[in-house]
């Protein structure tokens, strides 16, 4: 049985207090919100912080405000987020992504901020200590080799967050607060294509809020590939957002792929190919082929990598057809095993 290592738990009540605690223990402390990611990782000794700074009691992180857009506190649970986004609208992709994270129990605990900062995943990393030790560890923790591709100079662990591709498609920004500084950055700038240093967040910074701009005239959707209707992390996901003119032509488009690299990947060429034209079958097929080009799945998660690459255009097609207004409910039920 895997047990948690000993650690000190601090329970600040304000962001300021939490930031000070992080600043006081820069090399030793980690943040914990819902704990659905960091606690299992600690049991497997992937992370062994001496101090956990808990964000559960920080009330400032728990608000959602509508105004000019949507401002979401990072401490909102995924269940609360889904409940808030019940009304259909331009933010549909975010609701669809959030409602497909893990299981109801884990969504009750896990937060939006936590899902955005989710550790990257890999068959050779998400294992217990003894297993990892038996292969002399991997590059991401305690070792030197990337076992997925042994000649790779960098870690290839997969970005497995559902909500990040959706929020990227919606053009979100995030707020990072440290004891000295507060900064707002585009969500895209939070990520790096490196399985180890996958976030640009400093160890002393707290992700406090997510801002989604007002998106009049936009529509969005999220499609997730996983083996089962629950539990599983994405092994491919497609978030797409479009702004359509009254005549049906595309004014603006964003397509983001998840779980195909160590960070969410924007398929900008595919999105650009749609702008100015209508969503004809041909245009969708062309964009789908372009979207699959930057996908670089590796052999470190469920299903074979060749197949995941092969079906990428199909999933982009599903998303674009849905945004065009096609009835994709049967397809959705088949892929997601539920209506989302």
């Amino acid at each position, binding site marked *: 049985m895997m047990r948690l290592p000993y650690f000190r738990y601090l329970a600040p009540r304000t962001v300021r207090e939490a930031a000070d605690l992080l600043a006081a223990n820069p090399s030793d402390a980690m943040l914990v919100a819902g704990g659905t990611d960091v606690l299992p990782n600690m049991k497997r000794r992937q992370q062994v912080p001496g101090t956990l700074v808990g964000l559960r009691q920080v009330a400032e992180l728990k608000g959602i405000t509508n105004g000019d857009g949507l401002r979401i506190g990072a401490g909102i649970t995924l269940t609360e987020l889904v409940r808030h986004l019940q009304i259909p609208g331009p933010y549909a992709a975010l609701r669809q992504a959030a409602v497909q994270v893990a299981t109801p129990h884990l969504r009750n605990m896990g937060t939006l901020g936590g899902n955005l900062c989710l550790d990257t995943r890999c*068959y050779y990393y998400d294992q217990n200590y003894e297993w990892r030790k038996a*292969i002399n560890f991997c590059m991401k923790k305690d070792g030197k080799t990337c076992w997925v591709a042994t000649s790779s100079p960098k870690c290839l662990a997969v970005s497995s967050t559902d909500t990040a591709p959706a929020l990227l498609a919606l053009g979100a920004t995030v707020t990072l607060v440290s004891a000295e500084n507060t900064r707002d950055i585009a969500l895209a700038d939070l990520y790096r294509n490196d399985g180890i240093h996958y976030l640009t967040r400093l160890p002393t910074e707290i992700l406090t809020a997510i801002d989604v701009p007002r998106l009049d005239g936009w529509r969005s959707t999220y499609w997730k590939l996983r*083996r089962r*209707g629950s539990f*599983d992390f994405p092994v491919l996901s497609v978030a797409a957002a479009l702004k359509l003119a009254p005549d049906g032509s595309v004014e603006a488009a964003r397509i983001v792929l998840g779980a195909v690299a160590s960070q969410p990947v924007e398929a900008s060429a595919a999105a650009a190919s749609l702008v100015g034209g209508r969503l004809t079958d041909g245009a969708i097929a062309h964009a789908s082929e372009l979207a699959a080009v930057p996908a670089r799945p590796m052999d470190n998660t*469920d299903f074979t990598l*060749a*197949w995941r690459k092969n079906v990428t255009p199909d999933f982009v097609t599903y998303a674009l057809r849905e945004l065009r207004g096609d009835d994709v409910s049967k397809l959705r039920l*088949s*892929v997601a095993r539920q209506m989302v």
Partner: protein
Amino acid sequence: MQFKTGVKRDGTITGVHLKTLLDGGAYGSYGVASMFYTGALQTLTYHIPTYHFQGCRVFTNKPPCGPKRGHGTPQGRFGQEIQMDKIAEKLAIDPAELRLRIVEKPDTLTANYLQVSTTGLAECIRRVVAASDWKNRFRKLPRGSGLGLACSSYMSGAGLPIYYNDMPHSGVQLKLDRSGGVAAFFGTSDIGQGSDDVLVGCVAEILGIDPMDIRPVTGDTDLTPVDLGSYSSRVTLMMGNAAIQAAERAREFLAEAVSRKLEVPKGRLVFADRRVFDAEDPDKGVSFSEAVCLAEAIFGTLGTTGSYKPPKSTARYKGSGVGLSPTYSYTAAVVEVAVDESTGWIQVPRVWIAHDIGRALNPTLARGQVEGDVYMALGEALMEEQAFRRLPERLSHTLVHKFPSILEYKIPTTLDMPEVFTELVENPDPRGPFGAKEVGQGPLLPVMPAVANAVYDAIGVRIDEVPITPDKIFKALQAKAAGKSARYGPAHFPDVPWPETLQVPPPWEGGDGKAINAPPRPSKELTSKSHAPEVVRS
């Protein structure tokens, strides 16, 4: 594994040759027994006049393994039932019709000397064919949707104990008290299947009392007689028969006492509604508790025992102890699949399954077992896999289990479960308690091959291995599009230096269950001498 089946034009089987390799990891465990099961239970469903089995248990540097639901038989059943589908297509006979023509007859000794007592397989096939509207839908659904059919059989309890001895396999003690209650001591462990309820029901039925009048004490060898355990689908049949014997002995005491009191012949007494009464004059009777008091006054404290030992087999060849059972259950299943031809994505929307249980002692529990089987089988059919990877030689050369965790070892969730339509076929078996046969494992077996056969019906490709995953379907579709074999599965069976096969003439060729070419066994004396440790005296 490799199947070779001889058939006539009308579908009659002339012979089957099965070769299997079993990768059991680095430890012996149940390996040899599991391998024998693969061979033994293939002969039960259809009449097979000649049968040749060769099995090899391979040791590899993989983790230890053990048997699971179906113990060694899902593998062979998968191969046989897919091959039946291929045979039916080649002979242009409907797969359901083909199977109906060749089902094994009741009261038959198979080629490998297993005693078929009753079989409701034909009825099972008819039921799933009707329920699924097979005749109007098989080969007629739109492309991408398909139906597949498969059958199976499983034993109702292993005929031999794990450690050889002549004692009973199950035992029961009953203690009757003056208040009309019965304490029942069973050695069985209810592992969630509901066996306590079934056993209490058997006693209550014989004594004509309510199950709530019975206080079961189970699974504690300080208090109860020995039972061999909850495995091999044996509990209802073996413990049920023992419970019935103990209850019948108790009823005998009560009937004697009530007969004397009421001056009614014993044979006319009825035990029902917590009373013992005259069948010809139901008002004339005593309550069950009075009956106990009357009997106790005559015989003293009342207690009885019952036990069960399976009938002996005539087979005397090496390996013939595996697969023996008092009787066998039968199952037929039709599975519907929906396959996306662009991605290979597979979904199972519906399963129809009919199970010959002999008699369902508790239909709710029995259905629960059948549906649990379907669930577990779909995991095997679509997801479950232990994948290994050899790390590069220059760096490690270690063989690693790719995902030794339950998060990555996929089994279906409730969202992945199809609609399941369950039918219980009741054809009481004289060897079962009130006619009951097993239900715990048999219904799992036909589901995996039925999924594979349905995939073929849907898109015309054969996936000859489990799990049947979207990526394998995708590859088979690509091969088909490229004009290659529209099949995914092992390409050949490796060469194995087999020892000489034991030849056992089947019953219809005058066989007596012995091998005609068995090598002589070394005498016991020689064996014990060669292993005796040397004693050194000083």
